[in-house]
């Protein structure tokens, strides 16, 4: 059995990767993926918490969080698509009609 702290540690790393990816990558799809990574870091924590506390809540949370993540991806892709259809780019640095 893996220690809960290991799982949580992995979560921290994942979260860091996600966050850094989110602000260092231009491609919106990649950023979306990074966000998923961040959410998964949270899921790992829930799992670790469920293990650590021996409660079932964590598992439920994880399941729901995954559902949310899925919804988020769906919506995100749709929105990015509409961005692409008008500006023909999904680079976050180029879609800057709105600024200042």
């Amino acid at each position: 059995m893996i220690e809960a702290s290991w799982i949580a540690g992995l979560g921290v790393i994942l979260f860091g990767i996600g966050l850094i990816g989110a602000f260092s990558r231009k491609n919106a799809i990649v950023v979306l993926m990074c966000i998923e990574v961040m959410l998964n870091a949270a899921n790992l924590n829930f799992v670790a918490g469920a293990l650590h506390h021996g409660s079932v809540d964590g598992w439920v949370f994880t399941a729901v969080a995954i559902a949310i993540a899925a919804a988020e991806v769906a919506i995100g892709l749709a929105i990015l698509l509409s961005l692409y259809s008008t500006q023909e780019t999904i680079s976050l640095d180029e879609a800057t009609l709105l600024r200042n």
Partner: protein
Amino acid sequence: MLSLDEMENLLPEMALVAGIVLAILVPNLGNATLRLPLTRVRIPLFIGGTRFTATSDPRLPARISIVAFSVAFFFSFFGIEGASGEIGGVIEVSSFSRMMSFVFYGALLLAAVATTYRMPARRGARAPRDKDSESRVEALVAALMDNRRQVDFHLLLMMVGLGMSLMAMASNLFFMFVAIELASLAAYVLVAFHKEEAVGGEAGAKYFIVGSVASATGIYGMSLVYLWAGDLDFDALAASWAAMDGLDPFAVIGVGLMLVAFGFKVSAAPFHLAAPDAYAGASSPVAGVLATASKAMGFVALFRVLIEVTMPAEGEALWFCIVAILAVITMTWGNLAALTSENPKRMLAYSSVAHAGYMLAALAAIGSGLGDSATTELVLVAVVFHLTILVLFKLGAFLVLGLLETEGRSHRLEDLHGLARRDPQLAGSMFIFMLALAGVPPLSGFLSKLLMINGIVNISAGTGSTSADAIVPWAETVDPVFWLAIAIVLNSALSLFYYLRLCLVMFFEEPEEAKPLRRARHLRRTILVLAVLTVFFGIGSGAEFLLDLVETAVSAM
């Protein structure tokens, strides 16, 4: 299955769910029939076929959502007095949650009304192509904006309402996050709803990306808290926090990360950066919802986490200093940025940032732990009152822009030029909204700001040394919270500049085009009513009534 009592407590949400169902079904009703196999008997199926006149009416979805929101709105209102109940371990209906849902539904109702005029159906709409001439593109875009996507729009609107309302009722942190996500995801789509316009998609994309990062951060923070406490019920969390010996890094970092997520929701600096873009790109009613209901949602979350969970019984809260600094930065940033903004919607967005700053300052005053329960309540009343009446004038201002938008766009200050000459009613209302935003008496914006300052002063002014016999020694001893009050009033003065500038162009400049605005009867009446209410809740019995209401709600918290 819910019991009758629980049903009664959830009537507004029921109404909304019913609305969602109806919105999906009713517009699809038609004369479709199902021929019973082997017979010539045609059973009317109603779903599909040629739609009836009534069900194909393009305004139907709006009507449905308006009715649903109205019902929800009134039920919420009547629920403020004495609603209480606990459902399924994660929902707790209280006066406070009803008050907040009252605010949410109010804001969304207004957005629904405003949108009626934005999207009446028009035939022959298509997306513009490259070869189209500029004027043609404009016409096409206008037609597209008016395309029949009402159902989608109003569905999303009702989902936002449902999410927000559930969020206010959540007694469990995780459930609250889920509700927030429900509201937020729908809101992202609403922002990006005008995909025909280049800015629509961009605004949605930015808002979505930044918002998602923020909520991911928040959820991660929540997961850390879960790691620490093992339970996400607010009561349990509060108990764990109170029992915490020293500072647990999991708890502190978790709360801190959640602060980031809520900070984004209330658009506190520096998490607010996507907000102006989103407001500017979204249609005005949606931007108005973001600036009022969405912000209120963020504050409810802050209340839950900061005040219910992490506020110690005595002494300064851990987050006091952070929130205070955030407050000052937020209000100053917002006001400064709004100062030279040439886009009315952006300007209102920044002003919304500044208002978040004021309310954060009030929260910080609570966090200082100097006040007793009565003063804490006073400050909370102030904040909730502000959130409530913000719907009147902030959303009112967006609705005015929305009315302008139906003619063209309202993203330039020039679009407001000479509004007083073109449409005195609108200009007068806008003037009232602006002054209320700036906090000029006797409008309700003044009362709420006064109450917040009042609270801060009340908490802090007495802390100075009474034996100091000159200003400087006194100022050295007074609690820094006091300076938040000064910061608020100075910022109010600064903000006056851009609010007045907007009024100025309405009354002073020559209109770019002299033709009168659309009649848009309901929307116009709504705006006028909002203007009247802005005055009405400023002083006298109106204000007393609303204050009483808020007080009831807050005391239930």
